[in-house]
């Protein structure tokens, strides 16, 4: 299934929504395949909106971080927006808030 929907794109940014309530081991690999398919090196930045996600397990976090590593290797960025409180807290606990650039909404992300 397509769990990632394009919200908007311009020359530098690809803004996408993740259409999942539970991001877990059952959809982690598929998520990575879909995101990497969408990742066009011409885009400098992917902005991923997680506002529909209520729970993330460690397998999905692994897919998210491994996607970040891939994107960084092309000198591009993976930015996250729309994290709920539980996920924001989890990111802070395991220091992923130091790894990802995180904003509240698409509109809060500074222009590239």
């Amino acid at each position, binding site marked *: 299934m397509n769990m990632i929907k394009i919200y908007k794109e311009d020359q530098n940014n690809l803004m996408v929504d993740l259409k999942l309530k539970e991001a877990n*081991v059952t959809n982690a690999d598929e998520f990575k395949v879909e995101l990497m398919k969408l990742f066009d090196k011409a885009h400098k930045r992917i902005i991923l909106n997680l506002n529909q996600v*209520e729970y993330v397990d460690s397998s999905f976090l692994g897919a998210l971080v491994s996607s970040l590593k891939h994107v960084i290797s092309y000198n591009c960025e993976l930015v996250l927006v729309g994290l709920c409180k539980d996920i924001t807290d989890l990111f802070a*606990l395991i*220091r992923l808030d130091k790894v990802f650039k995180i904003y509240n909404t698409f509109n809060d992300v500074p222009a590239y």
Partner: protein
Amino acid sequence: MAHNSPKRILLVDDNLMFLKLMEKAFKKFGFDCSVAASAEEAIELLNSEENPDIILSDYEMLEMNGIEFRKYLVANPLFKDIPFVFLTFFADQDLVKEGLDLRAIDFVTKDTPVNVIVSKINNILFTISQQRELTELEIKKAAALLNFKSIPVNVPDINGFCVDFWHSAYHDIPGGDFIDFIKVNDRYNFVVLGDIMGKKWTAWFFTFGFLSYIRAAVRFAVFNGDYSTSSILDKVNSVVCFDDVLKDILSTLSLVLIDSETGAITYSGAGDLPLLHYKSIEKEMEIVTSSGLLLGLFENGNFNRQEICLEKGDSLFIFSDGMIDFSDLAGKKSDYNMFTGMIRKNLNCGQTFTQIKDNFANNGLNEQVDDRSIISITKN
């Protein structure tokens, strides 16, 4: 997915009458049915819904025929492994061969009685699930023969401390959590808890690589007189970052060194959950946070080292993220504070770690959604 949940089937046929008939028959036998009147419609459904357990498709369809549809699925990594059966009037030898070459499981002719078609699909699904179970059993046997244990059998005997642990594998299959106790000599012991980001066998296989690197890094460091936990994490991280096999695999790690002579405890962490220090006199829980990032993420893991001063009766808890996952009717959530509160409350009520372990084992605290591991270090 639970074993008893209804099997999902995707029926693809441009004959709407036949499609309705098959849908009704499969629903009657407890299947969850999706229907598509063309291959194009089926592709749209596959892109918008969860993958079905099996696809039953006609061959002769306008626009994209059954073989072309099958070719499309085989070329797509997300759909290529969905079992596929042709259901058609038209089945000459060449067509059957072409279909089977595309790893279609079977050809069923449309003149077969409907209840026989349903039985056939049931048998195919049963065989697939049986094969999966057998494969899993084989892997379990092979893993047992390897005699590699990512979780120790016994607790270590460390002078001046009582160390204990509890571990529960998700769905009873070894997963990504690993625990190790490395005794250097009578004075120094290392305690290791890590969690490969993944589940079940895939994650378990990588525990080999990580544990081997950690054990080697500890031994080399000690050999050179270096007992710094952060310096050991630096070494492990450098090797993991350069290992092509592990480059997409990330792991948390909590590394604790116990010095039995001085009673000192030092700790460094990599993307791990903050440890909990239970202060027995104050009856309070203190959170011990490290700055280190996940192993294998960046060459500079930003690892710090800190000393934790345990007084007599104090305990230190190291645990994996499965311990803070909770599940109820509203869904799943991760709640570190809820877990902290539960442990503190149990300890304040006078419960021992053995009793707390019993609570975990009886699912008294939360329903398991991942591997769960916890180590307790108590100062005597």
